[in-house]
């Protein structure tokens, strides 16, 4: 009997105490969790790819294809009669429930959060090649800076979140724009230090040193740190990676992707799984039917008459718009001529994104250019002008003009005029690209431009987007931008 007792007491003590905490440590078997992830360099690379993906995430309504709206519709150079929220954008009737003004916010935070995860967890990986890791973390930092730059230029002060989110930090407050910009500059600088000057074919499309410095220079412009902007712009020239193509048109021609003029593009490859809709927006409806193709063009966007009038005689960039009787060369000698049947409300159409190919051939998968060398040059010019180096600034403007068959512009030693000349060139050069409106707001020219060109009075608050109403509803710590 005594033996039983001893045995039993021992077993009780064992069972009451033996179970250790690790008994409860389980990991999901059907999903990839932290327990299985962050082990190999392939894990890290795929996580970085996931950050890039936001640029064209379908959940973000193909954000890259949306940016031309954000960067052009407020300028009114591209007109639309469809989409109420887009029309409101053009008419400067902005409010906090406009989906097109809101979706940048949502998508950029999605991207920034993914970058935070990679930076915090990827940095802790210690069993992979250190150089490889540094480059990947560099890409993540570049992307975080990029997403925050997009936020800052649209919304001003925004919550700056640099750590992986938990449910304890759901309701952030806004961080002053200067602080956000300082962080953006830090991220771009650290990225530029590790990113390669170019990538091999298998990795084309990733951010390079040039990409990081290109956006760094833009961030410097927002900081009004002209010296840094000049230094960084010159650093891009020194990389000897980038040059202007002979014809500006070639940058947009079908099949010309990731050219020497391009610093960053949103990559598309397979139209059936991840193509965009840019072409559909831009082609006139009847035109496609007339070409014997599917009448897929929606013809909902068309250049304004004012924009047509803005071209100087002999400007080769006039190809970007088609008016009645004008012809666009498509693929294999086929041409398309605007006629009365291909009418848009004012008879004009934008030729970008379908030049050099059959319209609506069901594969709108041309890369969308996010930053190009001609913009670097004009950003450099903007910085020079602000340092009163007007002759140098005009030299840069003329580089752009000369390429498209225009003569030199005479130097005007006056900041306002010089900036306006830069913006005039930008208006033609960057039509329906990704930055136009934001260059105009940064240089404080937007209000004057809209009044002079379109007779639209721009309310002062429209220098910034409104903070999305859904965010204000959910986060009492957020404040709305002044005037909304």
């Amino acid at each position, binding site marked *: 009997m005594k033996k039983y007792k001893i045995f039993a007491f021992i077993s009780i003590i064992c069972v009451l105490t033996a179970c250790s*905490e690790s008994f409860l440590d389980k990991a999901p078997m059907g999903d990839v969790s932290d327990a299985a992830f962050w082990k190999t360099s392939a894990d890290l690379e795929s996580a970085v790819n996931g950050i890039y*993906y936001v640029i064209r995430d379908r959940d973000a309504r193909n954000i890259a294809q949306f940016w031309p709206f954000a960067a052009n519709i407020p300028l009114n150079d591209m007109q639309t009669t469809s989409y109420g929220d887009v029309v409101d954008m053009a008419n400067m009737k902005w409010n906090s429930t406009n989906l097109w003004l809101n979706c940048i916010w949502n998508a950029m935070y999605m991207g920034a959060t993914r970058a935070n995860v990679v930076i915090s967890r990827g940095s802790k990986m210690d069993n992979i090649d250190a150089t490889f890791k540094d480059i990947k973390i560099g890409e993540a930092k570049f992307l975080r800076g990029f997403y925050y730059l997009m936020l800052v230029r649209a919304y001003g002060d925004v919550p700056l979140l640099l750590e992986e989110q938990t449910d304890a930090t759901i309701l952030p407050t806004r961080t002053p724009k200067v602080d956000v910009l300082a962080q953006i500059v830090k991220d771009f600088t650290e990225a530029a230090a590790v990113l390669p000057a170019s990538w091999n074919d298998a990795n084309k499309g990733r951010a390079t040193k040039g990409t990081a410095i290109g956006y760094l220079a833009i961030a410097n412009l927002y900081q009004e740190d002209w010296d840094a902007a000049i230094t960084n712009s010159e650093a891009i020239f020194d990389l000897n990676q980038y040059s202007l193509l002979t014809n500006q048109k070639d940058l947009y021609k079908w099949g010309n992707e990731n050219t020497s003029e391009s610093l960053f593009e949103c990559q598309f490859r397979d139209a059936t799984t991840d193509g965009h809709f840019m072409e559909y927006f831009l082609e006139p409806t009847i035109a496609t039917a007339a070409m014997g193709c599917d009448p897929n063009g929606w013809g909902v966007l068309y250049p304004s008459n004012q924009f047509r009038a803005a071209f100087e005689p002999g400007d080769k960039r006039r190809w970007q718009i088609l008016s009645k009787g004008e012809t666009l060369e498509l693929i294999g000698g086929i041409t398309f001529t605007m006629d009365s049947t291909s009418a848009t409300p004012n008879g004009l159409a934008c030729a970008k994104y379908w030049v050099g190919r059959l319209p609506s051939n069901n594969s709108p998968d041309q890369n969308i250019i996010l930053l190009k060398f001609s913009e670097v040059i004009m950003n450099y010019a903007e910085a020079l002008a602000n340092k009163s180096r007007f002759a140098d600034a005009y030299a840069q403007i003329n580089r752009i003009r000369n390429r498209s068959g225009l003569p030199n512009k005479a130097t005007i030693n006056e900041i306002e005029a010089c900036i306006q000349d830069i913006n005039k060139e930008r208006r033609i050069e960057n039509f329906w690209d990704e930055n136009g409106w934001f260059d105009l707001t940064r240089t404080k020219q937007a209000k004057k431009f809209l009044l002079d060109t379109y007779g639209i009075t721009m309310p002062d608050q429209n220098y910034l987007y409104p903070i999305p109403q859904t965010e204000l509803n959910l986060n009492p710590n957020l404040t709305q931008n002044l005037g909304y």
Partner: protein
Amino acid sequence: MKRNLKVFLLLVFFITGTSGIFAQRTVTGKVIDTGRQPVADANVVVKGTSIGTITDADGMYTINVPSSTSIIVFSFIGYVTKEVGAGNNAVINVTLESETEVLGEVVVVGYGTQLKKELSGSVVSVKAADAIRSIPAVTMDQALLGHASGVQVIQNAIPGSMGTVRIRGVSTTGNNDPLWIIDGVPGSPGNLNPGDIESIDVLKDASAAAIYGSRAANGVIIVTSKRGISGKPKVQFDTYYGFQHVWKKMDMCNSAEFATLANRAYINSNLTPNPAWADPSSLPDYDWQDAVTRNGAIQNYNLNISGGTDKIRSALILNYNSTQGPIIVSNNQRYSVRLNTDYEVSKRLKFGTNLFFSSSSTRGIPINDGSTGILNQAIQMWPDQPVYSPDGSYNILLTSANGLYYPRNFANPVARVNLYKYQSFGQGFTGQFFGELELIKGLKFKSIIGINYGNGNGRNFTPFYQTTPANILNTTQSSLSWSMSTGKTYTTINTLTYSNIFGKHNITALVGTEAISGDGYFLNTSAQNTPNNLEVPSAAQTKIGDGNGYEFAYLSYFGRVNYIYNDKYILQVNLRADGTYKLDPSLRWGYFPSASIAWRISEENFMKSIPFINDLKIRGSYGASGNQNSIGYGRGLESATNYPFLSLYGSPYGGAYTLGTSQGSVSTMVQTAIATSVQWETQKMTDIGIDAALLNNSIKITADYYSKVTDGLLLAVPVPATFGAPAPQSYNSIYSGFSLTQNAGKVKNDGLEFSIEYNSKVGNFNYNIGANITTVKNTVISLGAGQPIDQQMYLTMQLFGNTYTQEGHSIGEFYGYVTDGIFQNQAEITSSPTQAGVVPGDRKYKDVSGPDGVPDGKIDANDRTFLGSPIPKFFYGFNLGASYKGFDFSMMLQGQYGNKIFNELKGQIYVLHNFNGIGVGNVAKEMLLSWNGEGTSNTLPRIAYNPNGDNYKGSDFYVEDGSYLRCRTLNLGYTLPSSLVNRANIGGVRIYLNTQNLFTITKYSGFDPEINNANPLTSGVDWGQYPVSRSYTLGLNLQF
């Protein structure tokens, strides 16, 4: 050694006794129990000597008594030992009282048993003899139904499927299922054989349940299986056979009526009516409801062999059950084997095993689906079309060339249900091994090891078959899916119990640990285009495989102290600490205390003088329990999302980012939001109760007030987009917003429970009456961010209605428009709130509200309002039993009151035009009364082929009173006289006739008011579910 000596001495005495060396007297007699049944194998010993014997099968004994002063001791397990002086009697007959009768009823509680009279918590018991054996219960829930106050059981008519069990209301928007404890180990009741069951005890309040901590918030149901009884083997054979059928038919149009309405619909829409229906009166009539329903056979065979010595006892139970559903083709077969064994090594050391194996196979049918359910489609079939063509093949239903008359998405339901195979197979093994050791007197150590294995296989096959000429349904190619799942759970429970009485102090203390872990996997193969329509996945042209797995672990420490002073004052304190794998390591431990007190007033001296009160106790309890089942609920059991604190990674919706020349580079992102602070839903429960036994124990009353508040309800709370992480899984979700699971909500349930039992007899006529009633008031107190939970209900892919779970209302209330009659003329339209596109004859809605909360003169989404709750105000059961000589009778009435049902079926049979496309289908006969000119109807809108869709918006038209009173069981039995059966060497024979759901009193217009829908957000929505049926069975209980 001692034992051997005893046996030796006994032998010596026997030998010497029989050889007549001592002149002794022989005493004979019979030992019976209070039910006048003989007690076999009872020990009969002369006190202080080694003289002894045991009784035979008839309870007879013979013993030699040394002297008239000798005392004879009669004892048997489960009975109170009795001592009788021998005197000079030659015959001594003895009646043994069972321990239950003397000590009072014993109830099973968490990790032990307690005397009912000493309970301070709220526990309700159902004994096998009362409920389980007397009715043909196929699943465990049926054994509980109507017997226990506070326990709501909603039948599930799908053959072999468990119903829904809710204890004291619905306390969460997540999982509301109670915890089932089977022979001491958490388990699943799904495949249990009710014939195995000795008792079911339901722990309802915090005091009783909270010993199960974080799994106890929905109540605990403890199932105890039958054990062997010592004595020579007893064989009991129970069987029943019967039929079930759908007790109600929808009153649908016949061909002439249908054609008349259809013709009117086409004419009203300026379309040419179907020429085939030009002469409605000439059309033949076929009944499609009859074609898909049947008398389904139910049969059950249960064999229980039990016996043993006082040292080794065993019970073997074999069961086979076969149930054919009342809808054609659907059926379920189950067989099970149970072997429960007890070994008593010594008085202090006991071991035992419970082994249970079950296997089932089920043929399912498409059901519970608003658009493709077999019964739903059958009632909408064109009554002029036969099921079979003249050549005996299935009628390939007409699809007219222009598709205007016969819906293209309707197939012959009889063909579909026969040709499409939905089969599932399951096997489960449960083994429990336990040992108990009494270390010192009163101190017992018990250890249970439980093992649970389960396998499930699914085999679905859809052959290529033309059920419509246009091959619209997915029959253009064969498809099959085979799945396989396996899971296992290991449970280890160790308890140390000390129990002792010091004078007036009665103390029982318990400490213990419980560790549960397990894992599971599933594999799935789906294939398409098999050659020759064969069910051969390997030969298919396209094959896709998929799989998943999971692991889980729970660890618990618990303790309980029970103190009774002077048999009057009872105090119980429980504490449980639970750890779970589901939560962040820093938050995974939860602590759940509870306490209860009771005062047995009847033991006070001042009460002893009141003769009609036999027992009176008041009790109160308060405590906390949890509901960790809600963590990850609704996202697949034990799925990855059970880990809200872990980051999970996956591909972005839509694919991979393109880099270089490749089509896509592998892209990964954080897929789920990280909710590190998620914890258990915690429930605080108060219970105040009274138990009374009156009038010589003939009346027993229990009444309780309960109130439980579930706090930290797990909800998907919308979070700002700055949170960034949760990748939206659909195209539009970036606009509809992000959400994160958080402990944000608060729900209260409170109510009263009352039950009364009365037993009496008049001569040979015994009778008992029992009644119980439970009220439930369910209130959502908070939903975190305050936004209502909008559960959308779809009918043939169209949004048809909503339930809203909103603060101040109950969970899952119906939400929609309020009808206001029918527009009789243009003047009424002009003078009414604006409704787009209406013409006279269209439905009119009430202008309840505008965007600012005041009526705005137009009908839009702002006019939707609350239309009623699916939660009954009260539910009740009423039992009546009687026996006279060999006859016995029992009846149970059961029902609920004050709940509403959203009748989706009405959305199909009160509209002629097929919502989702073209053609018309049959409608309810009542549609003949539809609006057809001013003043003709104010409830049913005009009939048209392309009616105003707004006539069919989710509204109070579909919300119906769900109250019902039903005769759940009616049982008439006859036990053959023993004089008759003994001749055949049979112990006992009882035959009985049983009917279930004999009648139902309800205003509900659908098939049946019992809506078995486990999702609390849609619990009152009748999608056109498998209707509860009426059955008649003939049963036989044999005892050998």
